[in-house]
């Protein structure tokens, strides 16, 4: 089985392809000054970019885990989420509250897709 690793850093690859699956890293926003909707949009744009890099797209996402720094951000995040996928091709999903790497980060999303 060939494993293809994209955009590696010292600690992680941003996307890994194997066996027809695409695993993305937990994606966090770059501009942490934005509110929950702005941060969610940034994260989703980055997910779109990485999926494209791997030759797939948001319609092929099978699973998503979403961490928000305060579970009350769920509604704001969901608004952008639904705008993004249009309620179509919905993956299994879990959304939980967790402290993220930087306290200014309000959301982190990790998805797994197929090609």
């Amino acid at each position, binding site marked *: 089985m060939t494993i293809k690793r994209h955009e590696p850093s010292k600690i*992680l690859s941003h996307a890994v392809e194997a066996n027809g699956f695409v695993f993305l890293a*937990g994606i966090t926003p770059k501009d942490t000054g934005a509110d929950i909707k702005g941060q969610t949009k940034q994260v989703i744009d980055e997910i779109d970019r990485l999926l494209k890099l791997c030759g797939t797209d948001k319609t092929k996402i099978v699973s998503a885990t979403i961490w928000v720094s305060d579970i009350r951000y769920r509604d704001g995040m969901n608004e952008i989420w639904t705008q993004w996928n249009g309620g179509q091709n919905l993956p299994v999903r879990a959304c939980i509250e967790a402290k993220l790497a930087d306290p200014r980060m309000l959301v982190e999303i990790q998805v797994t897709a197929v090609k």
Partner: protein
Amino acid sequence: MSTGAIRRLEPEGGILSNVVTAGGLLTCVSMADDRTLDIVGQTRQALAYVDHCLAAGGSSRRHLLSVTIWLTDIREREAMNAVWEEWLGDAGRPARACIEAKLADPRYRIEIAAIAAVSQGE
């Protein structure tokens, strides 16, 4: 894609398997044995058990695809990362997410879940 047989290895306490393989993929979970150790010691132990689980299922750290790491205190991320980098060495980096969460016992500092490719035949 045929999923083939499902192998369940390293059963624990009648509640879970620490390793499951199916469809060319392996998934495993790991914590430290000694919950009195600090983040460095617990990370080393947890990663050693990941090695054990990967070997049991016919994979290795070079075949890691995706890893989720939960820390009891996210401020221990840098200390954990130093052990993580040393452990990975020149192996390709998996996708990864690291978040803070309360674990089963407050003395635990780290829990790891991993997905890897089964390497047999490669």
